């Protein structure tokens, strides 16, 4: 187990390095940062010297080595666009994204699990079918459109929620949270709802399928024969058995929630990492893009590692090595 974990850790490190390298090689294709950094009437000489100073003319491997060298010391450079150390920017934006992603996940769970259970128990009822169609409809429209429609309804027509932003934030140590202020909580509702739709559908489907499977097992038939109430069977026994795969999938999905947040954050102008990333892409702000990718890579790899270790515990068959 320990050897496995260490090996996976080393592999994870290699993955992150690979992400960084690929990102680096490809960044030269996303555009020219220089044009956004100089005034429109900057002379050609100024532009060329700026390219040189940024090291954009150096061989790509040299640029990469320099980047890794600095990154190892926690220095991700300075954003071309915002003139701030990237580390500060990320520290500033990271809490916003995590809070949004967690809130979305909570909404998805709070709505998805009951819906999944209900649609499994009442498999053929009208309500179940409508619920299933409804959850699927939520992922059949692009996020940006749903976001704009929600803004229109709740902010413009009803005037009950803000159209954008994160509201007031309070600092707890380095972590700036919007969860402790009224305006922060109000601002969270719409983006979290928008972001939760995809996970909600996923969780509903997953819980439903797992429940359907479990409900057919002998174990449940036996419980029923013992005369336990339906309620105790459904929630006490069946649901509990579906939770391992649900937790696994949620773990694996958390990374993709963070990635999905790119669109939600740009619609709601939520000051998180996704918004920062998409702005960086538009301006070809290489240091920000690189740091973001490494962070997201790190997140993915950590979660993957945890899930793999979890699997190993659950299913010993997978412990066998190569043939």
């Amino acid at each position, binding site marked *: 187990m320990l050897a496995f974990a260490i090996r996976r850790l080393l*592999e*994870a490190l*290699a*993955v992150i390095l*690979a*992400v960084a390298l*690929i990102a680096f090689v*490809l960044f*030269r*294709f*996303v*555009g020219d940062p220089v044009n956004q950094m100089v005034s429109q009437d900057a002379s050609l000489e100024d532009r060329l010297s700026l390219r040189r100073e940024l090291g954009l003319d150096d061989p790509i491997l040299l640029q990469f080595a320099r980047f890794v060298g600095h990154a190892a010391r926690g220095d991700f450079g300075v954003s071309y666009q915002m003139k701030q150390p990237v580390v500060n920017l990320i520290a500033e934006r990271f809490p916003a994204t995590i809070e949004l992603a967690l809130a979305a996940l909570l909404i998805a769970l709070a709505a998805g699990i009951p819906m999944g259970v209900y649609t499994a128990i009442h498999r053929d009822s009208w309500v179940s*079918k409508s619920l*299933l*169609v409804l959850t*699927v*409809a939520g*992922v*059949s*429209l*692009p*996020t*940006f*459109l749903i976001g*704009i429609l929600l803004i*229109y309804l709740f902010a413009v027509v009803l005037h009950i929620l803000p159209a954008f932003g994160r509201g007031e934030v309070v600092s707890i140590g380095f972590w700036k949270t919007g969860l402790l202020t009224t305006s922060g909580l109000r601002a969270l509702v719409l983006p979290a709802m928008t972001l939760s739709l995809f996970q909600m559908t996923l969780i509903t*489907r997953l819980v439903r*399928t797992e429940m*359907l*499977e479990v409900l*057919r097992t002998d174990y449940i038939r036996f419980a029923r024969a013992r005369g336990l109430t339906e309620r105790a069977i459904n929630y006490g026994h069946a649901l509990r058995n579906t939770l391992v795969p649900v937790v696994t999938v949620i773990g694996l999905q958390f*990374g*993709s929630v963070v*990635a*999905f947040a*790119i*669109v939600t954050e*740009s619609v709601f102008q939520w000051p998180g990492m996704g918004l920062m990333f*998409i702005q960086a*892409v*538009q301006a070809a702000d290489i240091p920000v893009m690189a740091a973001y*990718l490494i962070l*997201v*890579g790190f997140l*993915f*790899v950590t979660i*993957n590692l945890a899930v793999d270790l979890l699997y190993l515990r659950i299913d010993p*068959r*997978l412990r*066998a*090595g*190569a*043939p």
Partner: protein
Amino acid sequence: MIARASRSAQRTASGLLAGIGRMFRAWWAQMRNTDLVRSFFDSRLAVAAALAVLAMALAAMLAPAIAPQNPYDLASLSLAEASLPPAWIHAGDARYLLGTDDQGRDILSALLYGTRSSLVIGVSAVLLSAAIGVTLGLWAGYAGGRAGALIMRIADVQLTFPAILTALIIDGAALAIFKSYRMEGNRFAVLIIAIGLAGWVQYARTVRGAALVERSKDYVAAARLIGIGPLRIMFHHILPNTLGPVLVLATINLALAIVTEATLSFLGVGLPPSQPSLGTMIQIGNQYLFSGAWWMVAFPGLALATLALAVNLLGDWLRDALNPKLKP
């Protein structure tokens, strides 16, 4: 050395082809399975969804024949007739049943052609990711060891690059590499590759998991004993047993791919507006949401939602129908 490599490449290719053939045969065998067919007709929702998908696919295929206007033909656009409402509204024009967009393009025609583009992108992207994912997943699961671990680590790397980013990068790379890029339909290729690449990991994971389980079964050991090659075992024996989940994934990912195409156009890497897809139409209409020109977003939005919903429902039904644990 080179000859051997090419021979082995040939063997791999023929193995792959045989595998795909086998895949179809297995699929057809399952299709003929009366249970499946019966359960299909028992589910009114599935029938309705299938009919909707079929109707839209047909309309899209026939677009050049039935559309009143060719939206690709710039000469047929008249800017003076831009932003007209649907024909039944007072200011509407009978020639444009569903109104026109901001460039004077007939929405109905654009919708027909756009559905075609969206379907082509969606189906191709799904085929691409399934092909990559199934192959790599089988290999990782069957061969295991270093190669298997390597593949799964590559999968981790891939997961780090969301479709959006992959699209941005491929788009940029294509621009840098091909001089004539965007002269023709290359944007299609970029979208297909981007969405396809971003999606293969799920297939690989699913197939690998199944292959790991299958590998330890007796029939595989027996096949190996009588000297059947690994490729044959992978594609002939293991693959058919993983097809159910792959088919379900593919259906649901088709819906996802179509929606992703729309999202990418919101982020500025979709098809150019002169080549309408449902995504670009929604993106353009989205800008007119507040201005009262609701028809620019409502019709493509409705079409996209219907298509994605129907495909999703088919996928859901398929998942239940193919799940052996749910057999009565």
